[in-house]
């Protein structure tokens, strides 16, 4: 394992400190317990808090700021944060209108946020993101994972919250975006958890892992490596089979890198996916390409499609000012 680190135990604190100091005009860092908030507390709005294991940067800290999150709770690498972090973060950013937790659907995250919500002295609600179609959904199981669609949920709900909408409305919009969003991921290499010091899985030079999440866990299938168009076709098919969009539907297309795949390849994947969607009669009107939710140093990418409607499009387009996502229209 070659990584730019000092001590394995200090990676998180040092990286967070660097993040907070590089973006001191946007965020503030609290160290005991770990949480990040906006530099200037927002008033008169639902406080939007997310969090989860670290190693997915820029998620979630990079999405703190106007139009998106009020606070984020980073856990250890790939490990859910603990309820004391959520409680302290909520204490810091609650502005009288309740707290909305945006939580990726993993047993650990769900339970830790749930316990925090139970202990919270404020009104709260939770949006669980579960956009990963690699995992079959069922009421008897943990259900689908939350992956790159989480960024879209955070952006859209963050925008609504900025208008002063109440907790129920924010929760409802979050659930709606989640239900209209589906993702599929593919890995070309494993990642290496710093504390483990070796790749989570071994993979050959002619293989890929189809249907991976964002924690270096093996995917649904080990498959032979093939060209980009063929990979994209399989991913898009899985997504569309889930979303079943009507012909002519307007969609947002997000091609997300897991960290070690260069932009040149991500844009090539975008090109391939956008053409395919067009051929299938869909209308790609919004897009995002880059490393938005990563898996440490994994090479690979995910494709996410969100079915837009006027409300979602409007909140996607509205201004956002965070470390990792920023626009003004």
């Amino acid at each position, binding site marked *: 394992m070659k990584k730019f680190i000092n001590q394995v135990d200090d990676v998180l604190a040092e990286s967070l400190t660097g993040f907070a100091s590089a973006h001191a005009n946007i965020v503030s860092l609290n160290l005991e317990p770990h949480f990040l908030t906006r530099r200037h507390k927002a008033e008169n709005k639902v406080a939007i808090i997310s969090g989860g294991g670290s190693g997915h940067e820029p998620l979630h800290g990079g999405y703190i700021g106007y139009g998106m999150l009020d606070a984020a709770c980073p856990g*250890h690498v790939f490990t859910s944060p603990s309820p004391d972090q959520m409680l302290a973060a909520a204490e810091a950013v609650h502005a009288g209108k309740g707290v909305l937790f945006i939580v990726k659907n993993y047993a650990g995250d769900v*339970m830790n946020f749930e316990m925090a919500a139970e202990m919270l002295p404020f009104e709260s609600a939770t949006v669980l993101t579960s956009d990963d179609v690699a995992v079959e959904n069922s009421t008897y199981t943990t259900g689908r994972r939350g992956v790159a669609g989480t960024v879209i949920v955070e952006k859209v709900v963050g925008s609504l919250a900025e208008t002063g909408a109440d907790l129920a409305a924010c929760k409802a919009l979050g659930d709606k975006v989640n239900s209209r969003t589906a993702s599929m991921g593919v890995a070309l290499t494993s990642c290496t958890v710093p504390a483990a010091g070796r790749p989570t899985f071994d993979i050959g030079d002619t293989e890929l892992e189809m249907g991976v999440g964002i924690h270096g866990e093996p995917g649904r299938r080990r498959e032979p490596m093939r060209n980009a168009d063929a990979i994209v076709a399989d991913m898009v098919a899985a997504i569309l089979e889930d979303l079943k969009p009507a012909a002519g539907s307007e969609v947002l297309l997000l091609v997300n890198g897991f960290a070690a795949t260069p932009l040149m390849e991500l844009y090539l994947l975008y090109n391939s996916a956008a053409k395919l969607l067009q051929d299938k009669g869909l209308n790609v009107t919004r897009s995002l390409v880059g490393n938005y939710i990563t898996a440490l140093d994994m090479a690979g990418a995910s494709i996410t499609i969100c079915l837009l409607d006027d409300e979602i499009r409007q909140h996607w387009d509205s201004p956002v000012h965070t470390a990792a996502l920023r626009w003004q229209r």
Partner: protein
Amino acid sequence: MRTEFILEAITAVNDVILHSETELESLDREIGDGDHFINLKRGCTTLLAMRDELASLPPADVLQRIGMKLLSTIGGASGPLIATFFMIMAKVEKAGDISSLSEIAAAFNASVEGIKQRGKANAGEKTMLDTLIPVAETFNRLAAANATPLEIFNAIQQTAEQGMLSTRDMIATKGRAAFLGERAIGHIDPGARSSQIIIHTICELAKQHHTA
């Protein structure tokens, strides 16, 4: 339950977890995300550092502090589950001294019920519950039947091992292994294995106490 025994157990469990690094890490790497050992180690290290401060407290407070500390230290899926176990233990102990083995068995059972509720899971889902649920059952049954402590501890150890091994052929429906579908078959669940190791260790300690 005695504070002294709890403190001894902390040391013993810490030792055995540290010795299981390679195994636990690779189990979680195979069907999870590889951090189960680190998570447990973080918990153990913190408890070890708390021993002096716990030594003078009554058992209910010790259990409650352990639960709260583990809740804010372990994280992940195992953090809230293990913490819940201790927090319920603490509540039962607070309600009335747990001293007889059948009282301990009942408290254990209540705590495992807490884990089931927190994780919305049951036996057969390839989780730590596949160790814990049969152990609770064996413990209660033998304690009710007035078995000797040695018989009880031996039976618990055996049940824990069987429960842990039973996860090997399961498809997971809860926890990260659920994402793998069929690919999880053939791998023992890391949480089932760590619970079994911990239970085994505490039973060994209890046997020493009962024979000493």
